[in-house]
């Protein structure tokens, strides 16, 4: 029982992360968002407190197309944390969004093994009670 409790407290998911909060709030509503600099309009991922291009701190989270291309992926056959043990094997992809930024996300197991260059769409929903963006080969 105690072990179950400790495993439900994820060591891997940001907790009360003010920077990434809007991303999870949007995911809870089924939307995929990234930061856009109000000044130079560049999209950025992962979130930062300011724009690395023009240094403006004015930022808006904007919805982006929930689609992209697999830039690369890895298949974990070993669990490096107890909470990942039940998920082995699992696939993590770096997805180049059609709108530009690169996102890291879990790939939903499909009918075939992924290859670099596969088109993917976002699959947004609750996983273990947490809003999560995963990717599915389209």
């Amino acid at each position, binding site marked *: 029982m105690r072990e179950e409790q400790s495993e439900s407290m*994820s*060591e*891997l*998911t*940001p*907790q009360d*992360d003010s920077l*990434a909060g809007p*991303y999870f709030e949007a995911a809870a509503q089924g939307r995929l968002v990234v930061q856009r600099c109000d000044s130079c309009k560049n999209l*950025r*991922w*992962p979130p*930062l407190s300011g724009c*690395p291009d023009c240094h403006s701190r004015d930022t808006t989270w904007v919805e982006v197309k929930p689609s992209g291309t697999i*830039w*690369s*992926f*890895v*298949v*974990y*056959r*070993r669990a*490096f*944390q107890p909470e*990942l043990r039940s*998920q082995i094997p*699992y696939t*993590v992809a*770096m997805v180049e969004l059609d709108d530009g930024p*690169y*996102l*890291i*996300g*879990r790939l939903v197991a499909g009918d075939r093994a992924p*290859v*670099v*260059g596969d088109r993917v769409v976002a699959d947004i929903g609750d996983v273990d009670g947490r809003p*999560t963006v995963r990717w599915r080969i389209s």
Partner: protein
Amino acid sequence: MPNQRNPIAGRVAIVGLGHTVQGELPGRSAEENAVDAALSALADAGLTTADLDGLISCKSVQGQANDVAVGGLLGLNLPYVQSLDYGTCNFSLHLAVMAVVSGLADTILLTYGANARSGKFDFGKPMYGADMASAAGLVHIAGRAGLALQRHKAVYGTTDEQFGMLAVGQRLWAQQNPNAIFRSPLTMDDYLAEPYMVEPLRRSDVTMISDGGVAVVVTSAERALDLPNRPVYVSGIAEFAGVRGEHNPENLMRPWLKDSAQAIWAATGLGPSDVDALYIQDPTALWSLQMLEYYGFCGIGEGGPFLAEGHTAPGGDLPLNTHGGQLSESYTWGWMHVVEAVRQLRGQAGDRQLTTPEIGMYCSSHGFVKAAASIMSVNPAVGR
């Protein structure tokens, strides 16, 4: 004389080497491991702590063994004492060169110490706290390395067998190194039969966690001539920091390695064909693949076929990580690469000794943000 292009060439020499046994050292702290290595490096240099006027400590990945802790145990009060968060020894060596050339210090002890193995440090935890990548399960160094390798395979057609030449070749070197942790034979068939750990990486493509300390003594070229060892001069240094990090397109390919490469070749007037012994820091074999290409030992994307031709294994024309590297010898955050380069240049590398190497090179990277390279030679005129 040194020129404006490369004002450090031949002005600083490595004169002392020391290290502990690498592997499992239970009951010994990171600081004690650093101090044990330091005492052995000073003895090798024919010096004592009284001869030092500088100390540069590289913290372990866990933040241990800083300058205050190591310097305190050695009882040092010195003109120049510094700690670095950056491993691989290259960054420490560069700081030492700058300190000597600037006159801040003349004889400097560089230390590294860790006890990650017996301290059971968890390398599977997100090192800088949970983030969006760890939330997706991208943990451990093998995750990002695997992403970069998979991309390399897809774009350039690199095969497992080509890439496996790094692990297999370095094991051959390690079999001639009594200090290496992994010395049992590893054939290509053995390698290919290993299951993937984080596909496309296998266990043998990734370093082991080990305890240990390493130390290096550096001094001015003038003083080096009075010491017992054959001096190994620093011929050139270069760094480049892509600290824009993940906000660089395709940052996992470390595109900024080319900037460090251009800088060191431009400074020294040398090129890849001048290097007799090459050392590449390799927490995973991917580092070697990337640096072989960016430093110009082969073309970009041609690392696979180049490795398959056997250049880097024993008998090849570009001996790489002749101690076994981090894949077979020990972790030590790349510090043993410098030790081995100097041993080879001194002619003290035992069974694996190369035939009179004159120029050694060490390339390293701190995470996916920083590049550093050093060229070392027994000839003080190299790089001028």
